[in-house]
């Protein structure tokens, strides 16, 4: 879980892996051409897999969600480091 990664000057980032995630979209039938709005993923469905670089206890590592299968996971998104809340 969490292989160490080499970092260069480019900012590493993550993204989805595995099957492409079909975001459910809602189209408003009354307004053709209206931008489709993305809806949330649903409870009771599979959490989309992803891989992302991480800082963990002094090291830069790569984290893949599916490596955590067999364990409970609390995944916490937040707006930003050094913000106030």
């Amino acid at each position: 879980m969490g292989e160490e990664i080499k970092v260069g000057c480019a900012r590493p980032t993550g993204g989805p892996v595995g099957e492409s995630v079909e975001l459910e979209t809602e189209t408003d039938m009354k307004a053709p051409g209206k931008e489709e709005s993305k809806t949330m993923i649903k409870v009771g469905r599979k959490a989309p897999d992803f891989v992302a670089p991480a800082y963990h206890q002094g090291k830069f590592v790569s984290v893949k969600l599916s490596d955590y299968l067999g364990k409970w996971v609390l995944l916490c998104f937040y707006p930003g480091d050094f913000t106030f809340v």
Partner: protein
Amino acid sequence: MSAVAEKFSDFQKLGVEILSMSVDSVFVHKMWVDHELSKMVKKKKVPFPMLSDAGGKVGTIYGIYDEDAGVETRGRFIIDPDGIVQGFEVLTPPVGRNINESFRQVQAFQLVRASKGTEATPSGWKPGKKTLKPGPNLVGNVWKEWKTEMAFD
């Protein structure tokens, strides 16, 4: 996130792993830990991996990336050992979450899973409080088994 770091050992006792994620780079995560979070957490460290989602690709598939602001909103997802999302809550940036509530929810989901779905946790359930056993006999009879006040004690 300091509150989550502080609660980490309690989550570990339940066998729960924690992952945090924002659009900040791993370099900024390191600086934030070194210069601020380490001063806010008793053990002076952040014990869980802090993931970077620059560009918001992961936040987008989870439906919590705010493209206009270029940041993720406060989305918290409880994922079970089968990789299934059992619950989530999402708040706008100015209001912080209650980690104790997430902890309570995990305890409830774990109980339901352990009971193989034979038990359910009513409103305000906490460990030690009464659960309900859904079935034909309970239909229309919840009022005998469970009082509304129990949601608040």
